[in-house]
């Protein structure tokens, strides 16, 4: 295949310039909408589990080992293993299974950041709140959550980007989303299309990351960004 590089690039450009590839039920537009829909579903599902658990563990200020263990296991577990295991079980394959698998991988970053964010709330602030007579619920919602919010949001952002990067694997187990373009291209040996699909998926992931990072910067109040260094989300991992 050496020497065919430039031909493949022009094939990819030609493929991207064909309006027929953008419209229709299997066009880039429809696949992107499907991709984003699956991603939103997975993040909501993952957050619905990880946020309450992280808030509870963080409020009680214990359970650090659980979060570390979860994130370590999820690092070693390939997404493909989970997807093929689901496909062979009652969960089946297709988009629903992919959403569940992606949601499972969205849990560790949200859980870890929620827990860490809650732990980082200044003990003196909690003490002052307790002195003012705040009960556990008001303490959680009026003091701990607002102060931990930037770190929690960073975790959700990491999870969202990771999910958008995981969903392309759906194409391997008969699911939808932009990965379909790559998979079809590989199956039919149209490498221009494979390259175009790869670029589309990469652009989508980077756009989601950029939009979320910008939103986070806009939404965070100025006083919360000054003099704090722990805004970094936990290290993102490539989708496996």
């Amino acid at each position, binding site marked *: 295949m050496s020497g065919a590089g430039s031909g493949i690039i022009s094939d990819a450009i030609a493929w991207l310039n064909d309006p027929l590839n953008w419209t229709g039920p299997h066009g880039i537009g429809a696949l992107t909408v499907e991709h984003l829909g699956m991603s939103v579903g997975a993040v909501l599902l993952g957050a619905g589990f990880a946020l309450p658990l992280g808030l509870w563990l963080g409020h009680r200020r214990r359970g650090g080992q659980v979060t570390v263990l979860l994130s370590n296991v999820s690092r*070693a577990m390939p997404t493909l293993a989970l997807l093929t295991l689901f496909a062979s079980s009652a969960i089946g394959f297709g988009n629903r299974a992919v959403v569940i698998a992606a949601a499972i991988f969205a849990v560790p970053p949200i859980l870890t950041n929620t827990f860490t964010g809650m732990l980082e709330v200044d003990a003196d602030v909690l003490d002052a709140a307790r002195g003012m007579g705040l009960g556990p619920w008001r303490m959680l919602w009026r003091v701990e959550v607002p102060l931990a919010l930037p770190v929690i949001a960073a975790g959700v952002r990491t999870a969202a980007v990771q999910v958008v990067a995981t969903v392309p*694997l759906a194409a391997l187990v008969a699911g939808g989303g932009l*990965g379909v373009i790559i998979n079809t291209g590989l199956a039919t040996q149209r490498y221009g299309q494979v390259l175009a699909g790869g670029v589309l*998926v990469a652009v989508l992931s980077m756009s989601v990351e950029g939009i979320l990072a910008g939103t986070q910067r806009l939404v965070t109040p100025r006083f919360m960004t000054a003099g704090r260094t722990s805004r970094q989300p936990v290290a993102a*991992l490539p989708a496996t």
Partner: protein
Amino acid sequence: MSAGQPPNPWLSWTYVEHNWGDITTALSRHTTLTIQAVLLAMALAFPLALLARARPRLAGPVLGLSGALYTVPSLALFAILAPFTGIGRTTVLIGLVAYALLVLVRNILVGLQGVDPDVLDAARGLGYGPTRMLLAVELPNALPTIVAGVRLATVSTVALVTVGVVVGYGGLGQLMFRGFRSGYRAEVMTSSLLCLALALVFDLALVLLGRALMPWARRRVAA
């Protein structure tokens, strides 16, 4: 499962016996690919990290690029590489090295930057030159962060190899995919468990290696 169908257990020793050759081939490919990728990435990461440290202006772009490449999904990276590097081992290896490189450069740089300035000052006062300083003072002090980076890179590399399925070279992922295609539960489960076990073994080996390299860390805990 209805009564007429043949049994399809999750675990089956018969499967392992009958497919011993395939399993060992996939496992050894997975293992060698992981080791090769991490070693190559380390060989590249050290000079890059040292360069980024010597020229602080480069540190921002180096770390920024690492973050940007991390948002590129592995499937997309393999798809972008495949037309140029072909189907097979080379493409997977390049992708794996790229991802591992990012973790390693970041951790080596952070580790070197985290060395106590007083320690560096003391070494300088003892007349240590730059090379000896690096080898005898800075690297040993940065070792815990570097080892943490190598562990992270290795474990995620083991998982990433499976995505190599798209270019026909996914190690144990190849078996997962074949099992999925034929609806053979034992094949999917066995290869998934082997993959997890491989990550665990690598991680454990690195923990032990780290302990052997850093006897002082152990003594500090004991004290």
